[in-house]
């Protein structure tokens, strides 16, 4: 600033100070720029301190008076007076020593604000109580702010040059401190009590003056002087305490009186209201704490009780399909840490219960001899799955916990036994009947695809997936070989493709092989037919060549004594096959063949559709009238059990092609059989079925799977040890179980046994120091 030419640069804007702490509510406060008048007012003479103070005090009194009258005009002070004050102070500051009164003026400022706070502001507040106290506080606070703002205008020069030079606290800070120490600290407790009481009123439904609260809370905030401490410690803390006890009371009465949905609605309301409260007058930092308390009291502490409510809890809601309530439950508990777990758990328990009920139904039916329920079971489980998946995707917003809960629930009951068979087998049977139906166009393509997808999903829940594959393969084989005209290739391949996608190529490689084999077999057959000049043995022969490893293992029956004509067939095909392939070995499986035989019965000839075994037995009677069971065995070289089944189908079942002596229902080796020339039927062609031994099949499957598992475990152990070199027993077992879990749940004892076996075969050894650690033997 240049004193020399007498010009005074007046302040245009109180930018720095104005921004401070909100003490001055509007920043745009320019004193009138009366440059010319200032020049006139500039004096040469020294202003004495007492003189200057008198002038100052006059201005201050004027200010106070105006404030008391509460005029609404912004420009309270007469510009002339303002300028005089400003200049007086300015002069007193720039005067030469010993008349530079800056420091004393600074102190004077402090005294002024102190005095105002202590003598004017405080008493008037202290006279009031309750809401009136708050009003007075609010009013006085407003006054104080204006007061200080104007003072800052007056003392502006001091602010800009003295304070920064001497590193003193700025004027506004001084003012705020005075307010805090003289007023705030005295009244804050009472104010706080009133505030809390008002909030309580509002919670109970009454209307309160929100604007007032907003202002009052501003006092608390500002009194922190740069920190939020005062607000937090003097008000917020108590508010939170009060909130806690308030909602605790509410919770205990609501939980008794209300149903779960009603309670949730009330909680939702409460949360909403508290958030509103923050928007309207509380400091934003309070929101998260309030929400946390409300959530904690209303939702967390009663969660178990709420969810398990007898007729309206989670279980009941699921049962009654109350989507809105369940969605609300999800949304309420979602933001709470660990809040969703119990809900997911209740969901899981409910689904498990439903599933178990279905299983029990089927089990009971099976125990009473009815197997229809078992067949329908898979369909019902699929429906159950769809139903609850809808909830998971909808109400529960596809949340991982609920997917997991659903999975765990299904894993429990999908692996239970029903009447001798269990999960994997039932599912395979279901697929079998599904695909058999598909030939009849009972299901549209979309419906079929949807069902296939559901089957794949269910497979995920079954722990012994390898057993399913085995059963599926066996049934697939039967379908491909015996029902090939009924088979819908697209559907079958779709299933296999989807299985592959889910479980990997190795899982489905054999199945794929089987389907391709059928394709190739057709080619071979065409070629064979083309190569023939005449029918071998006078028979129309069709041969299906299968690749052994793709198909389930069948007993080879090459020592069966075939009738002449059939032998010719076999030889013809053998020579054809050898001529077009190299280094391949053909094994004939007669047990899977079908034969059409014309039975020349007396009434009329009938075409019989038989298995090869049945045909071979019957052909014996072309040459002999009567035969005993024993003789048949010897002549044909057929096993006893196989023959018994054949004979039963021909003599004791629906169609009596052979007469049996004695006419009992069972076969003894001494029974005598004779061709029944009197046999007839309305149809011209009949199929004489021979049921496959299903018990045996199941045992065989389990046996095969067990063997495969042993190999799988061995391979897994070796693989792990090869990469890890040294590993403690428990870790080895755990890793092994984990790696194999995709296919089946391995028995720990089995793993241990395989480890011992591998030790005996020198793949592994025990560590010399610690016997519970294994080492890989390279």
């Amino acid at each position: 600033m240049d004193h020399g030419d007498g010009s005074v640069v007046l302040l245009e804007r109180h930018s720095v100070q104005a921004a401070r702490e909100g003490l001055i509510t509007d920043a745009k406060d320019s004193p009138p720029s009366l440059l010319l008048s200032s020049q006139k007012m500039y004096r040469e003479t020294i202003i004495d301190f007492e003189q200057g103070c008198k002038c100052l005090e006059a201005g201050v009194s004027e200010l106070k008076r105006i404030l008391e009258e509460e005029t609404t005009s912004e420009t309270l002070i007469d510009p002339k007076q303002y300028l005089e004050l400003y200049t007086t102070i300015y002069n007193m500051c720039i005067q030469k020593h010993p008349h530079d009164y800056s420091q004393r003026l600074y102190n004077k400022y402090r005294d002024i604000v102190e005095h105002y706070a202590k003598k004017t502001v405080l008493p008037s507040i202290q006279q009031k109580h309750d809401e009136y106290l708050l009003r007075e506080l609010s009013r006085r606070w407003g006054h104080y702010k204006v007061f200080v703002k104007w003072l800052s205008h007056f003392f502006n020069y001091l602010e800009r040059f003295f304070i920064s030079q001497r590193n003193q606290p700025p004027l506004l800070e001084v003012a705020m401190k005075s307010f805090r120490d003289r007023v705030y600290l005295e009244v804050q407790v009472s104010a706080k009590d009133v505030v809390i009481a008002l909030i309580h009123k509002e919670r109970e439904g009454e209307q309160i003056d929100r604007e007032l609260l907003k202002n009052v809370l501003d006092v608390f905030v500002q009194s922190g002087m740069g920190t939020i401490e005062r607000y937090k410690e003097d008000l917020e803390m108590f508010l939170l305490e009060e909130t806690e006890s308030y909602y605790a009371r509410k919770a205990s009465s609501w939980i008794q009186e209300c149903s779960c949905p009603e309670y949730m609605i009330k909680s939702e309301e409460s949360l909403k209201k508290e958030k509103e409260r923050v928007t309207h007058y509380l400091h934003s930092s309070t929101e998260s704490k309030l929400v946390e308390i409300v959530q904690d009291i209303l939702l967390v502490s009663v969660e178990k009780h709420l969810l398990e409510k007898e007729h309206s809890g989670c279980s009941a809601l699921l049962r009654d399909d109350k989507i809105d309530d369940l969605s609300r439950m999800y949304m309420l508990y979602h933001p709470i840490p660990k809040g969703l777990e119990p809900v997911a758990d209740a969901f899981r328990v409910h689904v498990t219960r439903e599933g178990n009920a279905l299983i029990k139904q089927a089990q009971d039916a099976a125990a009473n001899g009815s197997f229809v329920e078992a067949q329908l079971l898979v369909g019902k489980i699929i429906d159950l799955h769809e139903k609850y998946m809808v909830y998971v995707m909808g109400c529960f917003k596809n949340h991982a916990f609920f997917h997991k809960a659903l999975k765990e629930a299904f894993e429990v009951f999908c692996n239970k036994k029903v009447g001798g068979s269990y999960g994997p087998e039932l599912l395979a049977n279901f697929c079998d009947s599904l695909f058999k139906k598909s030939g009849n166009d009972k299901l549209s393509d979309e419906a079929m695809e949807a069902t296939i997808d559901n089957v794949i999903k269910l497979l995920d829940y079954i722990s012994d997936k390898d057993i399913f594959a085995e059963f599926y393969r066996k049934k697939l084989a039967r379908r491909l070989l015996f029902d090939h005209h009924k088979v819908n290739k697209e559907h079958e391949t779709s299933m296999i493709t989807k299985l592959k996608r889910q479980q990997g190529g190795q899982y489905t490689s054999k199945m794929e092989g089987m389907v391709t084999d059928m394709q190739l077999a057709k080619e071979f057959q065409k070629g064979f037919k083309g190569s023939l000049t005449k029918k071998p043995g006078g028979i129309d022969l069709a041969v299906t060549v299968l690749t052994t490893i793709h198909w389930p293992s069948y007993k080879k029956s090459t020592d069966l004594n075939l009738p002449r004509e059939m032998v010719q067939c076999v030889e013809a095909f053998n020579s054809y096959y050898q001529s077009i392939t190299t280094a391949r070995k053909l094994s004939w499986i007669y047990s899977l063949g079908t034969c059409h035989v014309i039975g020349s019965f007396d009434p009329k000839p009938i075409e019989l559709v038989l298995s090869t075994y049945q045909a071979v037995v019957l052909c014996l009677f072309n040459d002999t009238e009567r035969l005993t069971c024993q003789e048949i065995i010897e002549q044909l070289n057929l096993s006893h059990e196989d023959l018994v089944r054949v004979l039963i189908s021909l003599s004791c079942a629906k169609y009596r092609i052979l007469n049996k002596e004695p006419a009992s229902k069972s076969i003894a080796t001494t029974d005598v059989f004779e061709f029944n020339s009197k046999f007839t039927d309305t149809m011209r062609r009949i199929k004489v079925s021979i049921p496959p031994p299903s018990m045996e099949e199941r045992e065989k499957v389990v046996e095969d799977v067990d063997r495969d598992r042993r190999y799988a475990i061995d391979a897994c152990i070796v693989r792990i040890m090869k990469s890890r070199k040294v590993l403690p027993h428990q870790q080895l077992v755990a890793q092994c179980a984990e790696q194999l879990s995709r296919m089946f749940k391995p028995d720990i004892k089995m793993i241990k046994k395989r480890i011992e076996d591998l030790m005996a075969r020198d793949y592994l050894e025990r560590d010399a120091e610690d016997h519970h650690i294994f080492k890989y033997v390279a």
Partner: protein
Amino acid sequence: MRRSSAASKKKSDSITSSTTDLFRSGPSKATSKEMDRIDHLFNQYANTSSNLIDPEGIEELCSNLEVPHTDIRILMLAWKMKAEKQGYFTQEEWRRGLKALRADTLSKLKKALPELEKEVRRQSNFADFYAYAFRYCLTEEKQKSIDIETICQLLDIVMGSTFRAQVDYFVEYLKIQNDYKVINMDQWMGFDRFCNEISFPEMTEYNPELAWPLVLDSFVEWISEKQA
């Protein structure tokens, strides 16, 4: 004479590389006189045509030593000799054993037996002896396991005096179970560890999830069921 001293030098080298043993702390060269006497003792029991002490010879030796021939001490002697074939001692083995025991007469040999027993039962040696006992019973070329009958006898001889209860129970179990027809080395060693680490009959420390051989898991299970 030179031949035998050269031979005895070789022997002391081979003995140095075997078990740690106080008896070896003496001068490693046996005198030729001692070796003669050892040989002389050998010839008393050996079969002249095969130049081996055969089972008959061993029986005679045992009765002279006044030790029953199924006694563990004979097994220990065999261990000391590192005898390879059950029921036979070669001259080399004989020399090895008796030299180590510093016994060149029958009476010295007899006196050496208690010390030998102490030596074997020392923690550091016993596992080795225990394993040796198993191998000693393997008669065929590629044989890796021993039948239950023999195992039971062996257990009795080797462990009977120190772990009577465990041996009795285990033998009983082995006789009535059907899962195992033979016992291999790993299972055999497992039993020794079992006796040393697990308190009997409480067996509280036993954890089937650790790497104990399965046969011991089943054994422990069987005992628990019996006790229940």
